[in-house]
């Protein structure tokens, strides 16, 4: 295939328009850099976010197929987005912070590896993002919350479902607090307050939920960033010495191979496609893939093991209302990852998630055994009385859980990504302990026969872990690939450990820290 040279070198080329890429693009463009974003998926705007669990599927990944192996598959399509805003366009806006112990699990527990930064270093970036995006919550109620500024907005209201389940936590001596949500409880001139109608998964067109279309991608465009859609990057290009990237090759919407030169490249294509692209970008200096001289690219891939607890409450719960991410949070079992024998890790409960009748996480699929004449009576009752909550566990990072290149190829002739993920036995024990607690809470709340859903993988992390040396990591704390200073990786792929909280807030904070570093040291980085 002949290559078409795209005219004009840019300062910053961002691969992926999701949470991480949009923060980089916004801040770099604001600083006067010429920024180009290449997005593999189609263009979307707020008007394309139709309130339907069926139509919501258009937002999910439909790029090259990802082969999945192992006893705990990661659910790439469900967890990944495709198009403007990436996965963050359908994310649920649950924004708790990682805890201090999440950054030092090797030192504290002998598990995984330490992050190259501590919580105090990241705190200022959490606070800045919080101020810029807006988070609704009640910091005083979150007794487990690490240090940080109070939330700029009051919490979203707790509705019937949340109140019904909270009774069970209270009866067990457990604590609940409003979930910190990147969802507006008060309006601004360009973003409405949340209407609590439970369509977050389909995307929030009124701007209440902080998806990139109304936050950093909007800011990036306002400062002159350009975005090209349906542009699939196939290779990151290096200079002759192999110590700098000079741009990328990408395949455009017409199938033409193009070359775009840049002074710096930000690889923000999410946890599966970023390592895939590094592995696809081998050259004479990096024969095993860019940044892979120590065979670490793709390794330590993680997903949060989760289970849902369900139950039919005596009272009406209005489960269709609220937010898909839930109403209340419990992190009582977060800060001691060794709190029970034979298990390891933190977990949290997200309580009172809004659910609709259909879809993978819908009410009907909570009881797939019900069919025929029993189905409609069940749904008639459950759509008014069901309650649910989701337990999210730490995932122990393991080198064997990894992204590799498959022998099968996509429509462009590029090897597919293959993701292998097996759950650690200590994590599996933790999930069982968590389930027992959840069922007990529901019984205390008045549910006669609660049930637990199957284990699922929520969120994708790792694969391009950060660290303090090339021997133990792919990048430094800013996401700069060791030995290739002007190539930054951004996103949850950097996480050395998963923690047990939703990752998007941390992705924003890390990206902000990294882009500020890049801009501050621009001359030496691109020299």
């Amino acid at each position, binding site marked *: 295939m002949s290559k078409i040279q795209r005219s004009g070198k840019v300062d910053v080329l961002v691969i992926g328009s999701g949470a991480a890429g949009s923060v980089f693009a916004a801040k770099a463009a604001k600083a006067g850099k010429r920024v180009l974003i290449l997005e593999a998926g189609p263009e979307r705007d707020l008007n394309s976010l139709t309130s339907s669990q069926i139509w919501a599927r258009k937002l999910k990944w439909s790029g090259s197929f990802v082969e999945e192996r192992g006893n705990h598959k990661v659910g*790439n399509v469900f967890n990944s987005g495709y198009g403007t805003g990436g996965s963050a366009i359908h994310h649920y806006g649950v924004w708790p912070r990682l805890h201090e112990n999440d950054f030092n699990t090797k030192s504290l527990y002998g598990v995984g590896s330490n992050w190259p930064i501590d919580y105090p270093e990241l705190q200022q970036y959490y606070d800045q993002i919080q101020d810029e995006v807006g988070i609704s919550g009640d910091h005083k109620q979150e007794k487990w919350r690490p240090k940080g500024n109070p939330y700029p907005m009051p919490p979203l209201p707790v509705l019937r479902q949340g109140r019904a389940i909270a009774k069970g936590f209270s009866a067990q001596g457990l604590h609940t607090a409003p979930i910190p949500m990147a969802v507006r409880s008060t309006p601004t001139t360009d973003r409405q307050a949340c209407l609590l109608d439970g*369509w977050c998964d389909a995307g929030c067109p009124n701007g209440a939920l902080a998806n990139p279309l109304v936050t950093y991608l909007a800011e990036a465009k306002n400062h002159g960033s350009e975005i090209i859609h349906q542009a699939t990057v196939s290779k990151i290009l290096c200079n002759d010495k192999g110590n700098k990237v000079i741009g990328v090759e990408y395949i455009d919407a017409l199938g033409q191979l193009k070359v775009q030169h840049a002074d710096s490249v930000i690889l923000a294509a999410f946890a599966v496609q970023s390592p895939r692209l590094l592995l696809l970008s081998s050259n004479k200096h990096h024969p095993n893939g860019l940044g892979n001289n120590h065979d670490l690219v793709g390794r330590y891939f993680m997903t949060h093991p989760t289970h849902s607890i369900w139950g039919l409450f005596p009272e009406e719960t209005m489960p*269709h209302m609220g937010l898909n991410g839930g109403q209340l949070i419990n992190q009582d079992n977060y800060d001691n990852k060794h709190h029970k024998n034979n298990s390891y890790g933190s977990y949290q409960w997200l309580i009172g998630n809004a659910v609709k*009748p259909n*879809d993978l996480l819908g009410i009907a699929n909570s009881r797939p055994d019900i069919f025929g004449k029993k189905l409609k009576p069940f749904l008639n009752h459950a759509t008014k009385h069901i309650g649910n909550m989701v337990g999210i566990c730490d995932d122990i990072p393991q080198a064997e859980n990894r992204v590799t290149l498959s022998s099968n190829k996509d429509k462009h002739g590029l090897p597919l990504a293959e993701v292998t993920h097996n759950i650690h036995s200590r994590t599996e024990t933790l999930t069982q302990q968590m389930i027992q607690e959840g069922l007990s809470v529901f019984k205390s709340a008045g549910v006669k026969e609660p049930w637990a859903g199957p284990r699922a993988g929520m969120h994708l992390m790792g694969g391009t872990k950060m660290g303090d040396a090339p021997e133990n990591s792919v990048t430094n704390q800013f996401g700069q690939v060791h030995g290739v200073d002007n190539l930054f990786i951004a996103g949850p792929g950097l996480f050395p450990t998963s923690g047990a909280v939703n990752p998007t807030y941390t992705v924003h904070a890390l990206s902000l820290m990294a882009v500020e570093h890049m801009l501050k040291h621009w001359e030496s980085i691109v020299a």
Partner: protein
Amino acid sequence: MKRREFVKKSSLFLGFAVTSQSLLINQNDAYALPAPMQVLGIQETRIIDILGEAIVPGAKSSGLSQYLDQQLSQKRDSDCLLMIRYLGVPSPFNSFYLSGLSAVDKSSGIKFGKSFDQLNEQELEEFVELMAKDSLPDWKGPPSSFFYFVFRSDAIDVTYGTQDSFRELGIPYMAHIIPTKNW
């Protein structure tokens, strides 16, 4: 004939072009005609209708077979709305559905000694139960419990995932942006 009477009477008839011939039929006859399918054959459509009703009553009239046919006809993966997208099955999904439907028919013959569309209500219920538990004899297709789960989810989508069905369940739809089409 006055105009109003003409309109009233003519509305009972619809013109259809079938194999290059025009004929006039009434609405009931029109409904009974097989809808033009792109991917699914007559027998497959029949199995979908029967199995759909057995698992999710109302699925046939909600358009399950039309939904599946339309989605399986999409040329681009990104246009497909089927939930199977989430479940780690590579596209195109036609082979998954067609082999599953074929397995339903064959397994019915082995279990009950008759084709699937000949099963009575009790046999259908037993069949679905066995299907959901991977207990059908000589099932050759995607794992039957997985096929059951996917197929049931599709039937739930068309029967309980639309504005009309929300209304029927007595819960408000509360759309930000109302879908102009169910799918």
